[in-house]
C-alpha cells in the first residue's frame, strides 16, 4: 500500500522542501513582526496586525489570487523581484514556498508574539546593565527565552505548509515536479471517482511526515526546557 509512484515521491520531496523553506525563510520576518507588535506602539499598528492575519481570515483561494496579482510575472512585486533580484515565483516551487510561507505567517507571528509578551523584561534589563547592547540583549537573552514560541510557531507553520493547497494551486498551479505538493496531489485524487485508496495512501504519508516533525519539535522543546528550570 505504501509503494509510492515516482511522481508521488517527487510530490513528497517537494512538499518537504516547500514547507521547510517556507518556515525557515519566513522565520526572521515572523520574529521581526512579532517583536514590532509586542514591543512597540505606533499609529496603524492595528492595520499592520490585521494585515498579518489576513491569510488566515481569507479563504486560501483569495490569498492565492492576491499572490498571483502581486507576485505573478505581471504583478508589481513579482516584476520587481524578477528584474532586480532574479527571483521568480510563478509556476516555480519557490512560489509554492511563498504561498506556504504567507499562509503560515500569522500562525508563526502569533506564537512568537505570545512568547515575547511573556518574556520577563527584568532579565533583559539585567543583560543591558552587563553591557549588552539592545541587539545583543535580543540575541543572547530574548531569543533563547522565546525559543518555545519560535519552535511552536515553526511547527504550526510547517504543518500548515504541508496541508496548504488552496492558495498554492491558485497561485502557482499544480505542475508535477515543480509545484505539485503532497496536498495538491491528495486534493487531485479526491476529485476523481474511485481514487479514494490513492488519496488515503498519500494522506497517511502526510500524516507520517507531520508526526515525525511534531515528535522532533517536542524533543527539541523538552531539551530546551530541561536546561532552564525557573529563574
Amino acid at each position: 500500500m505504501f509503494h509510492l509512484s515516482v511522481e508521488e515521491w517527487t510530490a513528497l520531496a517537494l512538499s518537504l522542501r516547500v514547507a521547510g523553506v517556507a518556515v525557515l525563510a519566513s522565520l526572521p520576518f515572523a520574529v521581526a513582526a512579532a517583536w514590532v507588535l509586542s514591543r512597540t506602539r505606533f499609529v496603524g499598528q492595528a492595520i499592520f496586525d490585521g494585515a498579518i492575519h489576513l491569510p488566515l481570515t481569507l479563504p486560501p483561494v483569495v490569498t492565492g489570487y492576491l499572490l498571483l496579482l502581486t507576485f505573478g510575472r505581471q504583478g508589481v512585486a513579482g516584476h520587481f523581484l524578477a528584474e532586480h533580484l532574479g527571483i521568480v515565483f510563478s509556476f516555480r516551487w519557490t512560489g509554492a514556498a511563498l504561498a506556504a510561507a504567507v499562509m503560515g505567517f500569522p500562525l508563526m507571528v502569533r506564537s512568537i508574539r505570545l512568547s515575547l509578551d511573556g518574556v520577563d523584561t527584568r532579565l533583559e534589563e539585567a543583560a543591558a546593565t552587563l553591557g549588552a547592547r539592545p541587539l545583543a540583549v535580543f540575541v543572547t537573552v530574548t531569543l533563547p527565552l522565546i525559543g518555545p514560541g519560535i519552535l511552536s510557531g515553526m511547527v504550526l507553520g510547517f504543518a500548515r505548509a504541508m496541508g496548504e493547497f488552496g492558495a498554492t494551486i491558485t497561485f502557482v498551479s499544480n505542475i508535477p515536479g515543480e509545484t505539485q505538493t503532497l496536498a495538491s496531489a491528495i486534493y487531485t485524487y479526491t476529485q476523481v471517482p474511485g481514487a479514494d485508496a490513492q488519496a488515503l495512501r498519500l494522506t497517511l504519508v502526510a500524516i507520517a511526515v507531520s508526526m515525525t516533525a511534531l515528535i522532533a519539535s517536542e524533543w527539541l522543546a523538552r531539551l530546551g526546557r530541561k536546561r532552564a528550570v525557573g529563574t
Partner: protein
Amino acid sequence: MSLEVGLRHRQGAFALDLAFDSPGGLVALFGPSGSGKTTVVRAIAGLLRAEQARIVVDGQVLVDSAARVFLPPHRRRIGYVFQEPRLLPHLSVRQNLDYGGWFAPRGARVSAAEFARLVELLDIGPLLSRHPGRLSGGERQRVAIGRALLSSPQLLLMDEPLSQIDENRKNEILPYIERMRDEVRVPIVYVSHALDEVVRLAGRLVCIQDGRLLACGPTGEVLTRTDLPMFAQRADAGAVLEARVLAHDEAYALSRLACAGGELWVPRLPAPPGGTVRLWVRAQDVMLALELPQGISALNHLQGEVLALGDSGLGTVMVRLDCGGTPLLARVTRLSAERLRLRVGLRLQALIKSVSFPLAGAAAGAL
C-alpha cells in the same frame, strides 16, 4: 570617583524627590522599605528614566534631563546586583558569570585568576555547570554578586546583596567589596538594612524616607545624629570614632590606635600604620565607670565628659560623651544612670571591650 545624583520622579502614588552626592568610595542608601532606594538605584543604572534627573559619575554625565542627555544602561559599565537575583535562566552559572565579560572592552576583562579567586570566595565552584533554576536562594544571590563583580564595572550598584547570605560567607565577601572600593577604586552604591554592613563599608550614608532625603553625609556624622529616630531607636545605635593606626601587634592580632581621646586596642585591622580608620562603637557596648576599675578584661578606657543625656526608649538613657574631642555614645539603663548620678559635665571613664568593635573597614581612601 565622585557621584552626583539629583532625581525627581513619580510612580503611582509614590514621589521621589532628592539629591545627594558622594566624593567617591562606597555610599550607602539607607531607609525603610518602600522609601525609594531601589528606584534611585534603577535611575543610576539607566533602567528608569526619571522625569527630571541629573546623574554624574566621576565627571561623566550619565543623565541630564535638562540637557536631554541619557546614556543607555549598556554604555554605563555598571555592575548591578539586583534585589532579586535576575540570573539568566537559559545560561549556566558559568555563562552567567561570564556574561558581562562578553561585552566588556578587551582590556577590561577579568583575568582567569581573578575569576577563580572570586568563585572560590563565593563558594560557587561546584555550581558552575548548573542552571540557575537548580540553585538554592542563597546560591543564586552569590552568583548574582559574582556576575556583577566580574563585569569589570566602573560603578557598582548593590541592592541588598547579602540579604540571604549566611554570616560566615558574609564575612568572606565583605573584604572583597572593600577591596573593590579601596584598591580597584570603583564607586559603589550600596543598599542595605544591616547597619553593621553600612558602618563597615560606607564612607557616606544617604538616608531616605518617603522618597525624600533625610540625611546625607559621612557615615559617622549621620549615624550619631540623635534627631534621626531611624538610628537612635535601634538597638545598635552608636558613634563612629576616627583614629590613626599606631602599630600592629601581630602576636596578639591587635592593632593599637590613637584617637583624640586616647589609645585603643582593637582586633587587627588591615590598614597600614599611619593610616586613618573609622570605628563603629555601639552605644550599648560602652560601659561607664566613675573610676577606672582594675583587673578587668576590657582593654580600652577613654576619659570623657557628659555632653548630653537623652531618653532612648525602653527605660534606657543615651549618654553623649566627649572624650577629648572624640564623640562617643553610651546607652545605659535609667537605673544605672541614676545610680551613677549622671549629669551634664560629669567626668567619667568609658570602657570598651576590644572584641566589641565590629570589624571596621580601613577606610583611609574611602573618606
